[in-house]
């Protein structure tokens, strides 16, 4: 049985505190005045070789904004207006950074919940030894998802441009979507998603624990039923959640496979974290019942879902690239032109690296390879979420600075604290599960 040591508590609490301090610093630093931004812009345009680049980007930016709001193009007013846009982007950054990190950790937890439900619904025989780890990771889901929703509500127009009534007043496309994209409906839907997921998580955990003490398989059967039901609920709400919480940051743009795409990210990060925590507990000698065949299977899922993610990423990209319809293709044009390095790095980290490292069957059983690939996958999927949110909120004023780093620290600390707290509550082996013997003897 795992016990949460004081050192661990202090470590994760200090991550949270350090992150919060950093975030508040970046938040207060982002409160520039319009005059300060003008000075900043003037400085930037005097930067010699760099100026061309910046100017190009600014120009693009300008176009982007002119599309969204119809303003006059008088030369002087234009400059002021540009400075104001930059001011907004700089204001948006701490919110967006916080939102990216919050969503990333929530996504891990939600991915694990779906993976866990699949194990129950398919009555998989190999995985019950990992159930307690998965259940603990999903413990973060309720607080994590509520935080994401709160940031979305508090961040308001800093993250979701359609929450700004002024923008909507000038934008016919968003006006047409108002029946879906309005704040009350957004909150209501968010609560329904979170409520549904948490209800499943609560009962599934309850039945799973009750099964340990029970003499018959009633709890297991119930868990099977609610898992199957949950998966149906999940695939709808997950898709809608990804429209609401991610896709709507670019309210003009849409992609029909976006839900799947986010799901692939989710489940691959979730499986990776399950594998990493399992390896951590193994090195502590607490999960002797997990053998290298279990790790092998987790690594296979990491490999498989990475390829699945790449498949969906490419499907989305290629169709939009090929059709070349202006309102669709802007999504990738912004990203490739303004974020060339993170855009292509992200694809390499999420696809090529895990593909090559985890292809060999033997490597999938070696913890160090799983850890290596796992860390890269997690960095890659953080960047994936970053690439979805940032280009819509801070446009070209992006970077990886104090705001982003402290946001990760906050949620990493919270994630570790809650997950390991939950791990310390119960035995690490779901010993009452009817499949547990098969799972313990599982070998490939």
């Amino acid at each position, binding site marked *: 049985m795992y016990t949460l040591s004081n050192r661990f508590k202090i470590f994760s609490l200090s991550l949270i505190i350090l992150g919060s301090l950093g975030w508040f610093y970046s938040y207060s630093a982002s409160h520039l005045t319009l005059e300060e931004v003008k000075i900043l812009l003037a400085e930037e345009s005097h930067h010699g070789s760099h100026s061309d680049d910046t100017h190009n980007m600014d120009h693009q930016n300008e176009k982007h904004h002119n599309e969204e709001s119809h303003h006059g193009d008088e030369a002087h007013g234009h400059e002021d207006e540009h400075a104001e846009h930059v001011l907004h982007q700089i204001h948006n950054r701490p919110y967006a950074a916080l939102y990216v990190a919050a969503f990333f950790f929530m996504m891990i937890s939600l991915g694990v919940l779906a993976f866990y439900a699949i194990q129950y619904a398919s009555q998989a025989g190999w995985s019950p030894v990992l159930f307690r780890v998965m259940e603990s990771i999903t413990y973060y889901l309720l607080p994590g998802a509520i935080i994401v929703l709160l940031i979305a509500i508090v961040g308001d127009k800093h993250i979701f441009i359609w929450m700004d009534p002024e923008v909507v007043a000038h934008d016919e496309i968003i006006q047409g979507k108002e029946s879906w994209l309005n704040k009350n409906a957004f909150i209501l839907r968010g609560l329904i998603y979170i409520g549904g997921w948490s209800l499943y998580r609560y009962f599934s955990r309850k039945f799973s624990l009750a099964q340990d003490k029970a003499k018959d398989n009633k709890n297991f059967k119930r868990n099977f039923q609610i898992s199957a039901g949950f998966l149906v609920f999940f695939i709808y709400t997950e898709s809608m959640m990804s429209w609401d919480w991610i896709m709507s940051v670019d309210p003009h743009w849409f992609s029909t496979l976006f839900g799947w795409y986010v799901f692939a990210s989710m489940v691959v990060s979730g499986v990776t974290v399950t594998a990493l925590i399992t390896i951590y507990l193994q090195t502590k000698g607490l999960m002797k019942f997990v053998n290298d065949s279990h790790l092998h299977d987790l690594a296979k899922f990491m490999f498989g879902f990475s390829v699945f993610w790449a498949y969906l990423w*490419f499907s989305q*990209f*290629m169709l939009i*690239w*090929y*059709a*070349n319809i202006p309102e669709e293709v802007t999504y990738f044009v912004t990203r490739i032109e303004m974020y060339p390095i993170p855009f292509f790095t992200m694809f390499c980290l999420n696809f090529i690296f895990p593909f090559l490292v985890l*292809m*060999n*069957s033997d490597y999938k059983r070696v913890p160090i390879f799983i850890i290596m690939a796992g860390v890269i996958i997690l960095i890659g999927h953080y960047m994936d979420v970053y690439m979805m949110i940032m280009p819509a909120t801070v446009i070209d004023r992006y970077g990886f600075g104090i705001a982003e780093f402290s946001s990760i620290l906050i949620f990493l600390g919270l994630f570790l604290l809650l997950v390991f707290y939950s791990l310390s509550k119960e035995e690490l082996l779901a010993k009452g599960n009817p499949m547990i013997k098969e799972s313990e003897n599982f070998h490939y």
Partner: protein
Amino acid sequence: MGSSKTFHALYNDDDILLSAVKKIKEKHYDIEEVYTPFPVHGLDKAMGLEPTRIAIAAFIYGCIGITVATLMMNYIMIVDWPQNIGGKPSFSYLENMPAFVPIMFEMTVFHAAHLMVITFYLRSRMWPLKEAENPDPRTTDDHFLVEISTEKPVAGLKKLLKESGAVEIIEVKPKDH
């Protein structure tokens, strides 16, 4: 070599076969071959066979496939007959690459799969019109056959085979073999 004798031991259950193979290996007899009607999980490990190298072959074939696809599409679509399809850049492979990815993928899979099957057949010495090497047709139905060659005294081996659950033990004469 002259004193070497070959035995065929028949079993009628895969679990019994597996434990028998382990016992025979423990006593250091050489198992020439095992004939089974279906793949028996874990048999290769019990027999002490080397791990398969077909995965390495598959990787190489995949690389060949993706190279073939790249060269082929470059020749067809860029060098030989560039076409204007939806205004896409038709004079650069790299800029037009996304359109070729499905073909590159398919050719990779195609080459890996087909060449792997052919390699497997050749490595197993199977080709068209080849006569079956199967010593006993019952192994295509419901029996498992272990072929053992030994220069040690025969009595011990026969006893071991009997104990391990063999339903039938046949001594094979050299000319039959």
